[in-house]
């Protein structure tokens, strides 16, 4: 990727606009300056020439044969000269002028002197007192005398300078305006891209129904169409996968039904079997139960993937419910402590799912928490809390999110041999709790002892809908 491309589209467009503005401003500025200068100089030149021609003739008429210096000076003063024009006269070797400090014999260039000594008029540019000037000269006919006039054209340069300054300011402003325009245009041009980015982020976050609105701009229609096409095929594909998982689990139910009924028939005749057969049957029976649970959990979780998980909400006396759930769980002996306000807590919940949440949390604590499980109920304004804590090794901070992933069993892989879970327990807990718009997390025990504390936070809704 070149350096230019690394700049980013928006910066590049802005920069291009700015450069364009600068180029335009510079070209127009230079052109303006050149043309103005030329026309000013031509005008000035013409004025100087006109004044010189008139004054030269006037001087020639008025000066007599006796060119006394005073008389000449008087004549020179009487001449109407254009502003800034200085006359100078040579009589033989004598020079008379109005301002000899500025315009005198020394300042008249030799080239001009030579030119007019041949009888013609001439003009040339010189520098007078640091200022540019045009000097015109003519030999007076019939005598050894010449008339010169110097016109200072410095003010033209001044005018041009201030014009240049103005043009510089205008050019700068133009460039900045162009840059701003470029920024705006690039933003505007990129607005559809921002929409696409938002849509892509929403897709990535799991909202598979995200689509772009058809754009008003025909140029973007194909981009938007192909984006939507991509989103659609992604959705179809994920949908297909989810449906497949759901159907597979569903198809497994029929053979499982046969397994379970047949195993029961065998179990009824267990006492007639050899020890070996009984052991094998016990293994078979246990794993049929485990397999059944796995299929149930897979189906349950695939309902979330297919999007058919619907909350069957009804008002529930939370503490009473949890008490019952514990008594039906794998550890009916564990202790439950309920805060004072927790005792009267009513939440709106899906009983089947909530019971599964509690059972799975208890199973998890039983499996990994080294026994000694405590369950707590408390509340805080409009949130009900259920905490299940154990005295196990706890969950390292790095794994606290991961443990809610499917088939994740923490870092203690060594214990897997004794594991009878399906690896879906906690992810089902998480899905169920989120369906209730609640949160679930794991933290350290509050009393500082080693062990994990799983917390479920469920919103307390005021209006329990009667689902009859």
């Amino acid at each position, binding site marked *: 990727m070149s350096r230019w491309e690394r700049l980013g589209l928006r910066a590049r467009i802005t920069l291009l606009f700015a450069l364009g503005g600068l180029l335009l401003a510079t070209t127009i500025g230079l052109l303006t300056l050149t043309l103005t200068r030329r026309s000013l100089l031509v005008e000035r030149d013409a004025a100087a020439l006109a004044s010189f021609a008139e004054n030269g003739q006037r001087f020639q008429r008025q000066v007599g044969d006796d060119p006394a210096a005073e008389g000449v000076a008087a004549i020179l003063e009487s001449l109407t000269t254009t502003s800034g024009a200085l006359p100078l006269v040579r009589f033989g070797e004598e020079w008379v002028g109005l301002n000899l400090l500025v315009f005198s014999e020394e300042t008249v260039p030799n080239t001009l002197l030579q030119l007019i000594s041949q009888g013609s008029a001439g003009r040339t540019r010189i520098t007078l007192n640091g200022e540019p000037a045009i000097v015109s000269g003519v030999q007076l006919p019939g005598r050894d005398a010449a008339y010169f006039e110097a016109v200072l054209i410095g003010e033209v340069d001044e005018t041009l300078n201030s014009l240049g300054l103005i043009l510089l300011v205008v050019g700068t402003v133009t460039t900045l305006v162009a840059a701003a325009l470029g920024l705006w245009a690039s933003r505007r041009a990129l607005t559809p891209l921002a929409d696409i980015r938002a849509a892509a982020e929403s897709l990535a976050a799991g909202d598979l129904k995200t689509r772009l609105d058809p754009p008003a701009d025909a140029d973007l229609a194909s981009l938007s169409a192909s984006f939507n096409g991509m989103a659609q095929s992604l959705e179809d594909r994920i949908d297909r996968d989810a449906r497949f998982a759901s159907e597979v689990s569903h198809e497994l139910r029929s*053979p499982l*039904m046969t397994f379970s009924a*047949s195993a*029961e028939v065998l179990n*009824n005749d267990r006492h007639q079997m050899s020890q070996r057969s009984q052991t094998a049957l016990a293994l078979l029976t246990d794993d049929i139960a485990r397999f059944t649970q796995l299929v149930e959990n897979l189906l349950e979780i695939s309902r979330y993937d297919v999007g058919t998980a619907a909350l*069957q909400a009804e008002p529930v006396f939370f503490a009473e419910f949890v008490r019952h759930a514990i008594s*039906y769980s794998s550890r009916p002996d564990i202790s439950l402590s309920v805060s004072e306000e927790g005792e009267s807590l009513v939440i709106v919940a899906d009983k089947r799912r909530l019971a599964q949440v509690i059972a799975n949390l208890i199973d998890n604590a039983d499996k990994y928490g080294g026994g000694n499980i405590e369950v707590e109920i408390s509340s805080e304004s409009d949130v009900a809390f259920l905490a299940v804590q154990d005295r196990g090794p706890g969950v390292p901070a790095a794994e606290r999110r991961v443990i809610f992933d499917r088939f994740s069993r923490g870092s203690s892989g060594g214990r897997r041999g004794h594991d009878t879970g399906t690896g879906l327990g906690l992810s089902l807990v998480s899905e169920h709790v989120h369906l209730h718009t609640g949160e679930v997390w794991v933290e350290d025990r509050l009393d500082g002892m080693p062990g994990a504390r799983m917390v479920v936070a469920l919103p307390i809704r005021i209006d329990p809908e*009667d689902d*009859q």
Partner: protein
Amino acid sequence: MTTRILTVEDDERIRMSVRLALEDEGYEVAEAESGEDALLAFGQAPADVVLIDIMLPGMDGFEVCRSIRKVSDVPIVMVTARADTHDVVAGLEAGADDYLTKPHAPKELSARIRALLRRVRTSDSGAPQLVFGELEIIPDEGVVRVGAEEVHLTKTEFRLLVELASNVGRVFSRELLLERVWGYGYFGDGRLVDVHIRRLRTKIEPDPANPRYVVTVRGLGYKLAA
């Protein structure tokens, strides 16, 4: 007398294994592999309990259920694939008394059957006759009249009504009704109660949309109004 169970299931393996397991429990089992078969078999020799898989080729389980209900109040257990779909409510509305999801342990099935039969055969009546306005219940005879007309209730509907009538004005939670009528524990499916209440209302209420006898107590349960 052995209890006769009719199982309606199109999967032969399931049918066979369930029959073996139920026979171990001491039941006599008749089989039908389709809805049409089931109606034929039921017409020839009525069963004490009917077990119907909803997913049947041809005539589906709901239809079988409705057809049997027209001629008999035999306890019916529906077998559904999933507990959280509309299938459960549809099955109950078609007249089923209870449901089971597949796969279930045969022990669970026989527990259900025992609960259904127990409540058909026993009647824990208090008073010989209960009268609420137009509604008259005679528990010992299993008779319910609205006005002078006798209303035909299934055994489960009848038990539910008698349960509510056993303590007029008292609010019965769904959990309590599930335990008393269906023999479930705390985690029974409340929809069993709701659908049966609905069915009961269509039979005994003058205006089922505005019940006068079986009243909903919002968020708590149901009661029989005096």
